[in-house]
């Protein structure tokens, strides 16, 4: 009896899955076009799965082994079941292999069940809670029905009642695992996930055979040529189809939620929920079935689910009232990329958030907080603070910095950034210049020819202002000869290194390396150009800036510099690629969405846990955010030092920062006043 039922079950499950697949693909195809190499993409799936995806999953060893056993067991069992039971070819080893595969899968599903017994808050409940049972049903059912096929049990063991029960169990397993995959059950992640790996919008982010690290973090440029085209993403269907596919691949593992600084601060953002909302919008409906942590809400504790709803062609953010997502959710993100770094499904949250912000800013003029003012300043004065662009070098009046306009060529172009207007960052810059002079580096600055890099404008969604700033900066850069750019601002660093390339006029290239000052200083130390007097016996911890670490993979150089300084480095619990954001990126301090606590306060809490005397940073934003933290009563404030300041303090036979004597200039000035 089973040999009649099983083929029917298996092939109808496959047929239903095929119908579901077509429907699902149709949902994705509502998105904007985005050309992909179909065959090459599909061919790359095994490597991308086994190397890149596994690299992320393997950070959680137990879960990774569980997944290998369950998923590997399932794929093998399903393939073999089609042959053995579907086509009735049980000869030889096939049946035994099927037994082994389903047993492995069963073992895996026991671990899944174990984890679901007391699931951490980040995991979604709802249908996900039945998944371990479905996995067991499938693996156990297939195991038992295979026993007669290999001759362990007689073919008619147990009679028709047992056969019917077994068939029902297998049917349950098939329903969840085969056509549930394309009809929107928890197993959807396998189907969408595999295709997402194949057709990812950033194929560059995967490693290649030569072991390239595969990093792709620069935002994609928005085409501003067509002046009738609507800008940014207003409705779910405005995403590209492969972005929609990516959202659909989410397994609701909540790893993104667990690392998101905005979520931890109680701001109304949860990256997992945001991705699920996009799925809701793509299919149409309300978020009532969402079974994970909702968006926090400072006033109400949590935003209740079921209030928001959307359609593929309806707005994501309502101009009035509620739609799919509230604007404050999108503006809470610091673009720290912690979620993207952790996501095992390689989903690009930051791209999606910035796409939606682009619509709000460029089409609706709805940048919140001080956003509009900052953008107006950038347009009128090329810096976010609205300072006189002719005063970019006022802080360095006594330093006699060589100007590119005068020297025209230099070994290093020192990019100063907008920190020139900030008194705290001016100290860092002075320290950096002292270091460069001590190492005899031939450098020059752009001075008043420099403009804001466009980082903030771009993260606030104002692509037009970003591109205008970038193009003018590029024109300035291409007038001068230099071997590399060095900057102490990781945001400028990232934009110059990863985002300007796409905006160079045709036939021109950004043909220079860009270094963060920590990398450059490390090079100087390694090549022996910097005389250091080590021995600052201090206990310090190092805070990885998001735009240096996760965006550009530079975790090592700053630590190497600190080692060369001979200080004792203690790591915070969350450091390196898991570093927690200071709260200063993505225009978050400008849009200033309220939460229950502040992100920099949490980060300084991390710092205090290490009992370090100082926290070393490499970013003007981080310095400002962390220094702005008021220590809790009874605690002393921890000093915040830029890595350049640390190095400058350790310089041997400290030469003066000014070649021209400072005193002489000063006394001259007094004389003039007297006469």
């Amino acid at each position, binding site marked *: 009896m089973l040999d009649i039922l099983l083929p029917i079950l298996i092939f109808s499950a496959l047929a239903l899955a095929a119908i579901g697949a077509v429907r699902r693909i149709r949902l994705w195809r509502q998105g904007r076009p985005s050309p992909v190499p179909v065959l090459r993409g599909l061919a790359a799936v095994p490597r991308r799965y086994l190397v890149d995806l596994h690299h992320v999953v393997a950070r959680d060893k137990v879960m990774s082994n569980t997944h290998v056993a369950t998923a590997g067991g399932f794929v093998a069992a399903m393939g073999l079941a089609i042959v053995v039971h579907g086509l009735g070819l049980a000869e030889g080893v096939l049946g035994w292999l099927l037994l082994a595969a389903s047993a492995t899968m069963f073992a895996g599903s026991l671990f899944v069940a174990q984890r679901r017994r007391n699931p951490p808050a980040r995991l979604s409940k709802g249908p996900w809670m039945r998944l371990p049972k479905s996995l067991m049903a499938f693996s156990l059912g297939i195991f038992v029905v295979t026993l007669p096929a290999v001759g362990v049990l007689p073919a008619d063991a147990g009679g028709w009642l047992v056969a019917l029960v077994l068939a029902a169990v297998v049917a349950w397993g098939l329903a969840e695992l085969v056509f549930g995959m394309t009809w929107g059950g928890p197993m959807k992640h396998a189907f969408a996930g595999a295709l997402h790996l194949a057709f990812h919008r950033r194929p560059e982010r995967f490693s290649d055979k030569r072991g390239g690290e595969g990093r792709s973090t620069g935002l994609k440029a928005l085409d501003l040529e067509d002046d009738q085209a609507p800008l940014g993403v207003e409705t779910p269907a405005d995403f590209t189809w492969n972005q929609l596919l990516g959202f659909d691949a989410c397994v609701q593992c909540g790893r993104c939620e667990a690392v998101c600084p905005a979520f931890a601060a109680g701001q109304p953002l949860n990256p997992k929920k945001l991705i699920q909302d996009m799925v809701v919008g793509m299919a149409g409906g309300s978020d009532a079935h969402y079974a994970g942590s909702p968006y926090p809400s400072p006033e109400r504790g949590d935003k209740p689910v079921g209030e928001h709803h959307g359609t593929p062609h309806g707005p994501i953010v309502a101009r009035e009232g509620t739609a799919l997502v509230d604007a404050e959710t999108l503006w809470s993100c610091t673009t720290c990329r912690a979620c993207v770094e952790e996501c095992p499904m390689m989903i690009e949250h930051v791209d999606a958030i910035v796409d939606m912000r682009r619509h709000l800013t460029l089409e609706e003029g709805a940048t919140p907080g001080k956003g*509009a003012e900052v953008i*107006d300043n950038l347009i009128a004065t090329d810096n976010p603070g609205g300072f006189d662009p002719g005063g970019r070098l006022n802080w360095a009046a006594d330093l006699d910095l060589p100007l590119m306009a005068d020297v025209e060529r230099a070994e290093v172009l020192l990019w100063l950034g907008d920190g020139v207007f900030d008194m705290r960052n001016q100290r860092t810059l002075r320290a950096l210049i002292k270091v460069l002079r001590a190492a005899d580096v031939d450098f020059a600055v752009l001075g008043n020819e420099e403009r804001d890099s466009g980082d903030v404008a771009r993260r606030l969604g104002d692509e037009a202002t970003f591109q205008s700033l970038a193009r003018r900066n590029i024109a300035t850069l291409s007038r001068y000869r230099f071997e590399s750019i060095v900057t102490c601002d990781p945001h400028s660093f990232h934009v110059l290194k990863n985002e300007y390339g796409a905006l160079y006029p045709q036939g021109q290239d950004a043909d220079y390396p860009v270094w963060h000052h920590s990398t450059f200083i490390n090079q100087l130390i390694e090549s022996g150009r910097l005389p250091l007097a080590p021995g600052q016996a201090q206990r310090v911890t190092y805070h990885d800036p998001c735009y240096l670490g996760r965006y550009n993979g530079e975790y090592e150089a700053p630590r190497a510099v600190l080692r060369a300084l001979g200080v004792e480095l203690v790591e915070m619990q969350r450091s390196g690629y898991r570093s927690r954001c200071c709260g200063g990126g993505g225009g978050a301090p400008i849009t200033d969405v309220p939460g229950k606590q502040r992100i920099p306060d949490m980060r300084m809490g991390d710092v205090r846990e290490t009992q370090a005397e100082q926290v070393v940073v490499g970013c003007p934003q981080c310095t400002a955010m962390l220094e702005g933290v008021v220590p809790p009563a009874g605690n002393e404030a921890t000093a915040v030092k830029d890595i350049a300041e640390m190095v400058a303090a350790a310089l041997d036979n400290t030469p003066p920062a000014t070649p021209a004597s400072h005193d002489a200039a000063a006394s001259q000035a007094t004389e003039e006043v007297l006469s």
Partner: protein
Amino acid sequence: MQPESAMTPALEVTVLVSIGRHPLTGRVRRADQDARGVELARSLADAEVRLLHAGECNESSEAALRGYLGMGFSELALIEQPEGADVLPALSEALDATSPHLVITGERAERGEGSGLLPYLLAERLGWPLVSGLAAVESVEDGMATLLQALPRGQRRRLKIRLPAIVTVDDAAPTPRQSAYGPARRGTLETSAGEVCNDDEWATWQVQPARPRPKRLKIVKAASARDRFKAAAAKAEGTGGQVLTDVTPTQGAEAILTLLRDEEVLR
């Protein structure tokens, strides 16, 4: 874009907008006060708002004018005028032709003469009342508008005037909304030729950058923080002066003339 209502005849509002100039960099932009005027107009219920500019049409002025379109308009009427022309006749002709109920504009332009006289001359030519320093339009009923005029130190005065009227706004009016790039570049400038009246006198002027005059320091001799605060928050005390009520226009005008003579503004 403009809210429409089939029931009540819409309130027709024209906002006169000019090319602004950023105080630090001199780059063209939407003029701040005019943008506030546009914001005020947009906040009126059932208003049909038109934007009107008279001036040159070139790349840089277009960029500035598009800043107003980005506040949610699909078009802006532009009466082309050569550089240095006196735009008064062209504007009054256009306003005469379209006869809006309310004309809103900034107190003074950020470029050109910037004398702040244009609204007055326009009101004179059209024979309409003018209210300056508007903070809000409270209501419009049966051809009468209730306005809130801003006075120094946050004081407000409620006024009722008969429409049509010209009102000007300054920094007390609501902050203008953000100008969005998409609508700004999609909107159209409806260009038309207007009556040209060359300003011969202006042509002979010599223009040079103003030298910032040093600020006169207010010396406060105060021993305590409380005294310093009181000094900083104190009202400027007017001395002398008189309040005239229930006088004929002629008497009022004479009083003003006498004062101007006393102060040697007029000789």
